[in-house]
């Protein structure tokens, strides 16, 4: 079977830096009313339609995408789930039969994550911005290996929805099953990390980074430590429940992103981070970018929907609804993020608490008049800050102001010149030393420009200036030499980011 993700990803790569699709209700349905459930559920098909059109209408590939494996919620009374469990048992047995020097073997796959003794992490991402993306790639290639070794190309990893079923599925506690394993507990019942209240709080966060951080620190970590034994070590994938547990984490991300319409980061550095330690179903090394993982639930597998907290599962689309979605998509949806214009401000500079940054650009407010005087403008202005070297410690964050050369740490964030802020959360070297992530920052300054204009604080001829102010993290000790070294600062004019709405 053609591996959908590889094929589609390689062909889409140049144009899918953002995988979002223009789906505002008005534009999608030409003003026709369509309920949210149908609308959101259609995304799986949207993904297929987009990719097929990009590939020149490759019907075979489209069919494969539409028939991609289903990852089902572990439960009793479902023949489809039972079949998935049976295949999973076979796959575990097959992988354990392979020699350890086969990169598809059980031990080799677990070793990508870490080891039980010594208890260390290897390549896995924890406490970083790639917790979601790294584990999604890990699950994806593991699933392909399972498919290959069992000869079942339809196999989808089942997920353990610990919010709905707090007791581990019986297949994992049956001593006769290859899925059984020594554990301290086979239930998460009674622990608030898995409660509706906790999940609702986490799912109500629409910030990609903090949503991921909360999900990781609470239910994800708690499941590992409650189950215990191997699961509480770097070698946790030695326990077969690891994979359905992380499949649930991945489902949470997919549900938050696709079903509940929250947006992933559009940060370049995040999208371009790549890994080359995974292997495909033939044991050959592959390279994959974090950005490409966001496509996976749309083209490589799909999740059987289920309830998490008070966020209900969504029903499938009917044929009419599918057709409506398809019509709109075939009419064209730009999935690219084009930069229409770059306005360099400075190259190679540094920022510190003692030394804020301020510089005038070569453009004035009049140059942006059409953009900032209309609510219907289709372009936005971003300050793009590209860093060269982070401070060794996260002792400060940075506030961005427009046209306020006197801005300093005391300038409040409700000042009309304030545009936004950024910090280095998750970009430290907590990545086990295997990779370095270079994070750049975009701050949308369009609303600030509009605000200044509305208040008469930005005349046509006023040059636009940008200020960056380092703000200490409260009274944390600030090293005098702590600097954020910047490669460049520029303004970017870009079309409105096309969104999965």
């Amino acid at each position, binding site marked *: 079977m053609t591996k959908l993700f590889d094929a589609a990803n390689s062909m889409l790569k140049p144009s899918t830096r953002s995988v979002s699709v223009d789906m505002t209700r008005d534009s999608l349905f030409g003003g026709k009313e369509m309920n949210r459930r149908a609308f959101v559920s259609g995304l799986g098909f949207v993904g297929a339609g987009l990719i097929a059109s990009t590939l020149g209408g490759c019907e075979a590939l489209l069919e494969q995408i539409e028939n991609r494996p289903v990852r089902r919620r572990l439960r009793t009374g479902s023949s489809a789930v039972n079949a998935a469990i049976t295949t999973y048992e076979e796959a575990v047995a097959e992988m354990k039969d392979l020699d350890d020097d086969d990169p598809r073997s059980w031990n080799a796959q677990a070793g990508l994550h870490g080891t039980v003794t010594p208890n260390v992490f290897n390549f896995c991402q924890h406490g970083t911005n790639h917790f979601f993306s790294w584990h999604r790639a890990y699950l994806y290639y593991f699933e392909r290996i399972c498919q290959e070794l069992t000869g079942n190309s339809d196999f989808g990893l089942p997920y353990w929805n610990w919010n709905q079923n707090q007791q581990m599925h019986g297949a994992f506690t049956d001593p006769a099953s290859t899925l059984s394993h020594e554990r301290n507990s086979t239930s998460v019942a009674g622990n608030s990390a898995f409660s509706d209240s906790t999940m609702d709080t986490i799912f109500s966060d629409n910030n990609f980074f903090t949503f991921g951080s909360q999900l990781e620190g609470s239910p994800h970590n708690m499941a590992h430590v409650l189950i215990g034994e191997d699961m509480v070590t770097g070698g946790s994938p030695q326990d077969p429940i690891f994979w359905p547990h992380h499949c649930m984490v991945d489902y949470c991300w997919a549900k938050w992103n696709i079903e509940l319409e929250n947006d992933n*980061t559009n940060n370049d550095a995040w999208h371009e981070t790549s890994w080359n330690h995974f292997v495909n179903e033939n044991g050959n090394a592959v390279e994959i970018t974090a950005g490409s993982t966001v496509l996976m639930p749309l083209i490589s597998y799909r999740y059987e929907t289920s309830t998490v907290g008070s966020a209900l599962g969504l029903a499938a689309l009917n044929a009419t609804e599918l057709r409506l979605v398809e019509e709109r998509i075939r009419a064209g949806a730009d999935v690219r993020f084009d930069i229409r214009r770059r306005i360099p401000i400075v190259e190679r500079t540094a920022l510190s608490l003692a030394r804020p940054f301020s510089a005038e650009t070569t453009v004035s407010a009049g140059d942006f008049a059409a953009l900032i005087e209309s609510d219907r403008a289709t372009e936005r202005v971003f300050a793009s800050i590209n860093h060269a070297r982070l401070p060794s410690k996260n002792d400060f964050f940075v506030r961005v102001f427009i046209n306020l050369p006197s801005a300093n740490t005391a300038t409040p964030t409700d000042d009309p010149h304030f545009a936004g802020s950024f910090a280095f959360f998750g970009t430290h070297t907590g990545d086990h030393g295997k990779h370095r992530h270079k994070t750049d920052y975009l701050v949308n300054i369009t609303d600030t420009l509009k605000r200044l204009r509305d208040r008469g604080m930005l005349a046509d001829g006023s040059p636009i200036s940008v200020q960056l102010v380092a703000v200490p993290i409260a009274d944390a000790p600030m090293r005098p030499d702590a600097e954020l070294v910047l490669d460049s600062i520029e303004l970017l004019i870009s079309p409105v980011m096309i969104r999965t709405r």
Partner: protein
Amino acid sequence: MGNAAQPSIISESNGTYRMDLANKIAVHPVGTKLIGPERQKFVQIEISDVVNPATVPIGFDVHYRPGNGEKVLLGMIALFPPDKPGTFIVATRGLLRRGGAIVVSMLVLKEPEPTDRIQVTLKRISFRTE
């Protein structure tokens, strides 16, 4: 797509707390200098050092205790593996007010052996608006 600018951090105190099997609770005041406590979206807990050679599973309840009233559970975090430091956030749900306090309680999730030693250093408890 989301905001590429990443979350800012606002903190009021860099008080350090050390916990062990005999001292499992840290109380961090929502001080008077904190601007807009009700706007602080997250409590951020920076665990800088963990001594747990037997890797006894541990977690932490994070409560908010108002100046006068019953404490409210904000959330729960866990260390994975149990000897790995890290930085964690828990949503405040807009409950913070001046005069209240954050109460972090260490939970030992498996009965430790008499010889087991657990020491956790909370380097900083801070508050974030985004």
